[in-house]
């Protein structure tokens, strides 16, 4: 009888502890489910739900908003995709910045800032990432989510042991099933991630997007970083822009899309749509396996003592010193590359020209900071 009572007590205490954990942690997890408000510039003409391009996304956590900025003069169409990987802050912050500051004179600019909307709602277990980071903007503190590389498992579960890419049947580790940038060209009634990918490809085709950017970041030890990645069709455009960026002291490596690797945006957008795809990478120590403490400030400063050691060991693919790689610099590289490539494209295809203003230059972001634009 006594032993039974002890067991009962242990049981009750364990359940009570579990309930407390569920309430406390659950509240914190729930916070990630609210989209932070964005304040689009007055040049916003309309917003379009992504689900318009795949009905199977309607009322799912995969639906997202496309912000549309139409100039007075007709011209080409540009798409800027951020938040493919919501743990790559410069990717979606650049998209947010463009939405809030863009002015369009000619052509149309579409911005999809939270491409994998579901992936914004959680963090990767094992990474110890912060949930939020703040930028001090014009009207005070703006709090932004720092999400996960992959779709939330609450929305897409379970992962298969092996991810078979559609339609190539390429095999990848099972968790890549939830990686939007391994899901293209997508599947109309596939997994949530495949449905999102399908909608984006369908959007590019339906709206005749001439030029499409996918904004990323990667760990500083990753081989493809500070790079402009392009598939066959966009390679000339990328090289031409790269030469002109060098005159502004901005250095990028030009990487071709690997021909035998499927599911990537630059690869499949080139094969399944008529657009000129460009993927941009900057270096983000918060994503790296070599980093020290995972504090929210690391997202902003990009300065980490372990990466300083790594730089001395020569294992990094980017220059790295006590200045770190702050977020304003990373966003600056993205904005500068986008502006330059749009410029070169408009020059080469005047009938599809896109003319924009209102965006800061790389130097503006370094000297004035990010907060000036939020």
């Amino acid at each position, binding site marked *: 009888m006594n032993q039974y009572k002890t067991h009962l007590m242990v049981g009750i205490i364990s359940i009570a502890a579990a309930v407390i954990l569920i309430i406390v*942690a659950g509240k914190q997890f729930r916070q990630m489910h609210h989209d932070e408000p964005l304040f689009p510039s007055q040049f916003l003409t309309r917003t379009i739900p992504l689900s318009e391009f795949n009905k199977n996304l309607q009322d799912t956590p995969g639906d997202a908003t496309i912000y549309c900025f139409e100039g007075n003069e007709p011209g080409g169409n540009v798409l800027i995709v951020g938040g493919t990987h919501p743990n790559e802050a410069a990717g979606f912050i650049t998209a947010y910045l463009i939405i809030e500051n863009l002015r369009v004179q000619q052509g149309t600019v579409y911005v999809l800032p939270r491409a994998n909307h579901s992936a914004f709602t959680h963090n990767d277990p094992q990474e110890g990432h912060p949930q939020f980071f703040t930028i001090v903007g014009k009207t005070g503190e703006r709090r932004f989510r720092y999400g996960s590389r992959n779709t939330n498992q609450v929305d897409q579960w379970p992962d298969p042991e092996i991810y078979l890419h559609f339609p190539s049947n390429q095999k990848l*580790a099972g968790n890549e099933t939830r990686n939007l940038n391994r899901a293209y060209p997508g599947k109309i009634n596939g997994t949530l991630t495949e449905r999102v990918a399908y909608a984006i490809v369908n959007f590019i085709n339906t709206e005749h997007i001439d030029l499409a950017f996918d904004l990323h970041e990667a760990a500083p030890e990753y081989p493809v970083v500070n790079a402009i990645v392009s598939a066959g069709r966009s390679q000339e455009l990328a090289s031409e822009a790269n030469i002109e960026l060098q005159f502004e002291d901005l250095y990028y490596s030009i990487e071709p899309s690997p021909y035998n690797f499927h599911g990537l945006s630059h690869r499949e957008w080139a094969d399944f749509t008529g657009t000129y795809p460009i993927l941009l990478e900057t270096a983000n120590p918060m994503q790296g*396996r070599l980093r020290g403490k995972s504090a929210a400030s690391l997202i902003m400063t990009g300065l*980490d003592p372990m990466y300083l050691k790594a730089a001395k060991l020569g294992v990094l693919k980017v220059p790295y010193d006590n200045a770190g790689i702050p977020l304003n610099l990373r966003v600056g590289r993205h904005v500068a590359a986008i502006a330059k490539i749009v410029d070169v494209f408009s020059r080469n295809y005047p009938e599809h020209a896109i003319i924009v203003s209102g965006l800061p230059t790389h130097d503006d972001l370094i000297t004035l900071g990010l907060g000036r634009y939020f």
Partner: protein
Amino acid sequence: MVGSFILFAMLFKLPIGISLIIASIAGAFVAGEGVPIRHLVEGSFLYFDPILIIATAMIFMEVIRRSGALGSISRFIIVRMHRRPFWLLFFLTLFIMFPGMITGLSTATVLTTGAIAAPALMLLGIPHVTVAAMIAMSAILGMIAPPINVPAMIIGGGVDMPYIGFELPLMFATFPLAISFNLALGYKYVRNIQIDKMIPKLDTDYFEIYGWRLFLPLLVVIVLMLGVRIFPAVFPNLGVSLIFIIGAIIGLFCGKKMNFWHVSHSAIQEALPVIGILLGIGMFIQIMTLTGVRGLLVIGSLSLPSFWRYVSIAVMVPLFGAVSAYGSASVLGVPFLLAFLGKNEIIVGSAISLIAGLGDLMPPTALAGIFAAQVVKEKNYFKVLKVTLIPAVITALWGILMILSANFLAKFM
């Protein structure tokens, strides 16, 4: 963190899972993070899927054991194969490895074909601890063997290298080792089998009573697991856990009668300590990353001079894989592969995945070792690990050798 873990596990004799949780909380607190409940819970979800797989695989195994299927299969193997001991061990090795080759999971391998082969091997006179070691090694090498090797996929994914052309290097990395280990460990016991003395010790042949029905649950599990691999367009992806549950339910009606609640109760009770360890390790890794200890370890391994770097691959990669080869492949495998750029990446990746596989033998989790011990009913899994020590060292050396001669090997593959 490590200190407080050892303190609680060794000194206070608390279960390993609980000790890991306490160590995680202590580690976060000392690092000035307070008690980060969100991180603790998030980390504990790292191995949510493996936990489900282990729990359901244990139920499945218990069902096919009690139904009489396992005993009947070992009877069949012994009666048919006792005259050719070499080929017996040869084919049993491939048989045990098979689920690992297809699923990329070492634990599922130990608990399915490992559990089937174990009684036969023990009846043949191989000491039960040696049997567990043979099964653990075969399961790990099966997980690494082609066509499916998840650690290699994870390492490749980290550098955008497609999982193509790994078949030959992975075959080279695994099959010679698996077959020679099992022959070295077991052949001396099975060389002269006196079948007349063995027959009475064997389980009843339930096949005579229930017919093919007896093997239906196994067959269903194998078909469902293979089907989704071979015909992904036709077969729905049920997930390994659901497949095991389906198999277990079918097993209730295909052999000796049993009470499902008793079966699942005892199976879960056996799985519970391991589940606790998985939860604890998940928290532990999350806190290690949060506080920067993980980065310190990775940088430490990378900063070693080149000879010691090889040593550290052999030591750190399995050590970090204490919970599962997957974690180690991701955290250390990718930086190491990048550090060896210039050598044939496919062979280096295969070799690192081989060494990462050894993580499943590394305490405190040592999943392959723990379950192999359970399969042979040995309470102290450290006895099993002792027998696997030499094979594990040879495996690590084999992997290092592959990295050293990667460009040379590449000419033949």
